[in-house]
């Protein structure tokens, strides 16, 4: 977990003894502890019960506050920072609606294992339980969607809770935590004589090294093995180890949605993404494999399809840091609860290169017969064409985020991801509205990289207000809206599975997104009105600054292949080679 361990800045704020032992308020203690953790940005929205917190934050010389236009935006901005950096990131909100507006971003972080620390104001303790103004049971609401959460009852407790929050968010399988701080705790004065050490991730779990030998023996003796790699590899910082492992053992590799970018797009062993929108040959190979090695994956239903029909001929090996994932969906013949990077590092020490000519021949055969069909890849105003055009203009330094829907799946299928953490998308929760604020977070954390967000006209509306935040911070954020005037993925499912009974999917009132962008201080480009759309796209992407690019597509475009929800992965619709 070295990559995700936070690196507190080595500066005077980290001296363990306060300059002079003095009385500090709870809110001053919070800010000081966050500074000592190395936090540089906090996204948030202030409010009544968070006033002391914001009063103290104003005094910080090392933390910059980013004023989101909605608390959900603040949560996703912090997520964007965390997703590209691997470090725990912080968002602030007030009590009541401030806290409840954060919920979706916190739940999203939970499902995608993102280290997010949500700090909320709460009404004073003596008013809790009285239905006070802007009172809500934040502790109860956050409980089922966090790794752990607290309601802090004294300023003293903050000295243990804040470092503990970072420790838990970063340790093992990362995830969100939340800290609810009543206003009277924020204002309570206490003597602080010593600061706690900034927290880092605890050591990864010990594991039986002999299990590695057993795993390798199984892989060597199998005839048709496949690797299934996911977010765990990214969070463990184990990309290099994985590549060496796969190459030496010559094992074809499928990537989960969260694992895109671990193997470069054109890597000979890469079979792309598996599951609901995976290529036909990829899902067919999973049907045939005799051994599936899941590394840092959780066998999500979008990846497996109908579980009983997933890899029907294969034994499963499962390596994951979260013990409760092992056996949750698939029962492995061999499992290792460990940091996947440590397992691969040890495994690589004892690897002799081998080759699987027969199996690779079969892979090539299926790939040739059932390739991923990217229809319209050379037409700008078609989904794959738009994505390819953007990818051709950019290089691998760009961070690519998406919203949720058809555009997200098209990008997952077609964008050439070539490094981990290049791909930022809401996987488990599938939150429309994720894209723009996450792209803002990516730009804040890595200002030297372009932050490019593919969105749809449905998703983009759900957090469009954050355009003002992007303009205020003058961030290099580009949003490409694949605009079909519809909720495209719902339309697709109604078309395929509900007798084309299209209901509540067409926006009767269209929105001029380029003008909306300009209204909020961003540049707006409408390619529908362009005389030379390709040049306008290129100029818009390459100049600095926030910009919305509207790119019209037909509402009849579909994401293919598609496995029906609940169906077996071998039963794909569409996407067949002619």
């Amino acid at each position, binding site marked *: 977990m070295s990559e995700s361990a936070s690196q507190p800045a080595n500066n005077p704020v980290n001296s363990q003894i306060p300059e002079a032992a003095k009385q500090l308020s709870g809110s001053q203690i919070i800010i000081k502890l966050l500074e000592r953790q190395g936090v540089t940005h906090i996204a948030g929205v202030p409010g009544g019960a968070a006033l002391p917190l914001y009063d103290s934050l104003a005094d910080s010389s090392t933390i910059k506050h980013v004023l989101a236009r909605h608390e959900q935006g603040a949560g996703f901005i912090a997520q964007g920072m965390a997703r590209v950096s691997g470090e725990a990131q912080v968002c602030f909100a007030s009590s009541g609606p401030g806290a409840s507006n954060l919920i979706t971003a916190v739940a999203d972080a939970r499902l995608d294992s993102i280290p997010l620390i949500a700090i909320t104001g709460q009404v004073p303790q003596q008013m809790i339980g009285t239905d006070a103004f802007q009172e809500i049971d934040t*502790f*109860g609401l956050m*409980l089922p969607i966090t790794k*752990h*959460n607290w309601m802090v009852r004294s300023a003293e407790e903050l000295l243990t809770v804040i470092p503990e929050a970072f420790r838990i968010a970063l340790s093992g399988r990362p995830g969100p935590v939340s800290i609810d701080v009543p206003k009277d705790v924020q204002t309570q004065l206490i003597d602080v004589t010593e600061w706690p050490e900034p927290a880092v991730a605890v050591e990864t779990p010990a594991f039986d090294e002999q299990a590695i030998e057993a795993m390798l023996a199984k892989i060597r003796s199998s005839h048709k093995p496949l690797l299934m790699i996911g977010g765990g590899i990214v969070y463990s910082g184990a990309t290099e180890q994985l590549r060496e492992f796969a190459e030496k053992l010559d094992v074809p590799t499928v990537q989960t949605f969260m694992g895109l970018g671990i193997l470069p797009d054109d890597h000979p062993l890469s079979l792309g993404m598996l599951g609901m929108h995976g290529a036909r040959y990829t899902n067919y190979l999973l049907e045939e494999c005799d051994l599936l090695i899941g590394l840092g994956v959780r066998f999500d239903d979008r990846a497996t399809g109908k579980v009983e029909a997933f890899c029907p001929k294969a034994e499963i090996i499962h390596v994951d840091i*979260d*013990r409760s994932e*092992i*056996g*949750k969906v698939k029962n492995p013949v061999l499992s290792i609860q460990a940091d996947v990077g440590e397992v691969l590092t040890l495994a690589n020490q004892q690897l002799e290169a081998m080759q699987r000519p027969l199996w690779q021949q079969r892979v090539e055969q299926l790939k040739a017969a059932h390739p991923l069909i990217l229809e319209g890849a050379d037409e700008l105003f078609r989904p794959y064409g738009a994505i390819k055009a953007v990818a051709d203009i950019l290089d691998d330094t760009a961070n690519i985020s998406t919203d949720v829907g058809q555009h997200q799946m098209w990008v997952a299928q077609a964008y050439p991801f070539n490094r981990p953490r290049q791909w930022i998308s809401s996987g488990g929760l599938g939150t429309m509205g994720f894209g723009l604020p996450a792209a803002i977070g990516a730009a804040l954390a890595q200002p030297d990289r372009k932050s490019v967000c593919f969105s749809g006209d449905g998703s983009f509306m759900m957090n469009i207000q954050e355009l003002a935040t992007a303009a205020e911070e003058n961030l290099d954020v580009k949003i490409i809206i694949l605009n079909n005037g519809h909720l495209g993925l719902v339309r697709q499912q109604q078309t395929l599975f509900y007798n084309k009974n299209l209901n509540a999917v067409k926006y009767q009132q269209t929105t001029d997104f380029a003008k909306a962008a300009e209204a909020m201080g961003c540049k707006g480009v409408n390619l529908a009105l362009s005389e030379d759309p390709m040049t306008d796209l290129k100029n818009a992407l390459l100049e600095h600054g926030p910009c919305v690019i509207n790119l019209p597509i037909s509402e009849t475009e579909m994401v293919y292949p598609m496995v029906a929800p609940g169906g077996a992965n071998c039963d794909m619709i569409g996407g067949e080679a002619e």
Partner: protein
Amino acid sequence: MSAVMTPSETTERLQQSVLKLTVNNHPGVMSAVCGLFSRRSYNLEGIMVRPIQGTDGAQSRVWLLLNEVDKLEQVMRHTEKLVDVLTVDRHKLEDSVFAKTEGFFKV
């Protein structure tokens, strides 16, 4: 406990397991445990909680009666992940707190 059990009662018994938890004693722990069971739709048949004597109120003992034979291992793994849960152990139904208090749960 009645001496003679009907066949359906016997089947029910075979489906039941008892878990013994040691947890940090502070507000929210009960919510965390019960919430885990409801959101993962595990069948929780009984719960008994009291502070552990001699820990100065720092720890509580939670007894859980479950109707989850197949998922028991998963239930235990998820329960162990809760930060405030210190230990999780299986316990026999026969001499458990549930067997001994059955008289309090009759019509």
